[in-house]
């Protein structure tokens, strides 16, 4: 019974999240439609550079409005107050995903400054050690992989493919 209720709550929260996504996409789409209208047309062709984007955004806006109406009709009123707690629960269960994206953002921000090998070494060590089981063998494997994919890959690309990965400042 409890499981069923949990499932319904998750479904409701998912539908509210989707509704929010429709609204956000609608705002972006309207913005881009207005921007497309300002693109000057050419006298050499019937359609200007803005026509195709406008066509796409009109269709997208119509679809999003119908999706919003459908969602609002489907979601019961009492589901909205429960949404915040469900969203926090969702984020908690997916903490590793959020951590992965945080690591990635730091990694690519640092790469142009400290260079590919060091940035990758630190990123891989941090991420691998977070995910791996806590055994000596696993830690040794983490260190080996981090070295291989940072300095090893850097060497391979430079020497074999003549592609020079960012060297840092």
């Amino acid at each position, binding site marked *: 019974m409890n499981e069923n209720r949990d499932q319904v709550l998750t479904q409701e929260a*998912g539908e509210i*999240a*989707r509704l929010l*996504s429709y609204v956000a*996409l609608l705002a972006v*789409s309207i913005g*881009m439609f207005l*921007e*497309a209208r300002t*693109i*000057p047309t*050419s006298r*050499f*062709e*019937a*359609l200007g*550079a803005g*026509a*195709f*984007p406008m066509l*796409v*955004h009109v269709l*997208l806006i119509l*679809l*999003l409005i119908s*999706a919003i109406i459908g969602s609002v009709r489907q979601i019961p009123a009492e589901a909205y107050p429960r949404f915040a707690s469900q969203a926090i629960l969702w984020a908690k*269960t*997916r*903490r*590793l*995903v959020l951590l*992965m*994206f945080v690591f*990635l*953002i730091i*990694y*690519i921000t640092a*790469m*142009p400054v400290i260079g*590919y090998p060091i940035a*990758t070494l630190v*990123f*891989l060590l941090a*991420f*691998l050690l977070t*995910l*791996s*089981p806590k055994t000596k063998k*696993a830690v040794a494997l983490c260190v080996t*992989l981090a070295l291989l*994919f*940072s300095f090893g*890959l850097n060497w391979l*690309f430079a020497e074999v*493919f*003549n*592609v*020079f*990965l*960012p060297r840092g400042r």
Partner: protein
Amino acid sequence: MDAFLLGASEVLSFSTLTMMFFGAIAGIVAAAIPGFTVTMAIVLTLPLTFALPPLQGVSVMLAVYVGGYTGGLISAALLGIPGTPSALATTFDAYPMARKGEPGRALSLGIWASFFGTIISTLVLIVAAPPLAVFAVRLGPWEYFSLIVFALTIVASLVGHSLQRGLISALIGLAIATIGTDPMMGRPRFDMGFDALRAGLPFLIVLIGIYAISQLATEVEDPKTIHNGEKLVKGEIKFNNFAVMREVLAGPVNLVRSSMIGVAIGALPGAGGSIANLIAYDQAKRASKTPEEFGKGTPEGVIASESGNSATAGGGLIPMISLGIPGSAVDAILLAALMVHGISIGPRLIMDNPDLVYGMFIAMAVSSLMMLFICVVSMRAFLRVAEVPKWVIVPTVLVCCIVGTFALNNRVSDLSLLVAIGIFGYAMKALDYPLAPLVLAVILGPIAETNLRRALMTDNDWSLFLTRPVSLVFLVAALLSISWAIRGILKDRRKTKQVKDVA
């Protein structure tokens, strides 16, 4: 006949065969690593072939190409990430099959279907290349635009749980494709002042971000299974090659139909392999006695997708050779390679250098034979990727994606784009939007726009889209695919309602 034999003698020399062998291995390995696409493998092979005679160089590239089409299957089946866009439909069934404990069967089915697909397409090419090229020449921008509309509606109605979200996803893809300079006049659009957006979003980065990054993020969703060192693919990998070969050949209609779709779609310039696998899959589903099994790991789905996409490798050569229009990004690089080797692409090629053209066809067939041999003999070695636990795969493949993205254009700003698209892709996936329509729309968007504008430049009359027969057929097919999907949804709804009423 002389030209055929001359081409054959050049391709079948020991040195060419050896190089093609390594090319095929490189293609398979490259496409098997998600984020390290066959396009990159071909780009990296290109400089290595400069010193070779034209046919030899092109044969090696073709081997990489054929190997790559098959290699895309490995990551599609085992990781659920299509190594190339052409392996998109393969993920629908090969991945569930692998997850259900039959990874060996999924791969084996795909490999054999790929092999037969390539062979069938090569045979068709040799016989029917000239009339097909003539047909492709007659298609105008109206037909291309309608074809793309048809392709997008098919994908939107085919994947995911909701037609509405499928269509929204396709339109988001088209909207993303409009960022950057417009394809006709070069006018800047929607770059918001960022240099990185000025040239538009390169579709390979969108592909890697949407598929690889978001898929990898999905893999780390459950902390418990990660820390336990769970493997991506469970179950023993058994190939049973001959049993699978018989299984593939037991459904000749599906195999031949899918291959023919692959050839026909591949022959349409601008369409390319990215659509063929989806249409072949869709047709197989419609013709099947058990359509409800599609998407759950049915062998028919794997066979349709893989034979369809491999057959386009051959079909794609038709417009490329006869018109000089590449079918996809991979075809574009192959085209560049031919030009680097001093081969002028166009209708005169078949007349002036028939030995070269036949040589290319033979190289295709030989490559697929090599691919089959390599896969059957040493697939176990390639499959070590399946025995590696998730906690190793996710970070290292992420680094491969980063390196692959950087190496495409040597631009650090592409990496920020990649991560941003990855986060967006994960959010869409979490919200149950299908990703395939978006990715395909990003690839097809510029082609659709160019053809729409070109059509109206030629004649400012919208009714031509409906009065030209081929264009009308594509548009009617698009409408049918949507109504078919709506009918399915209504049927499901009625069923659930009945079940609820009974309860």
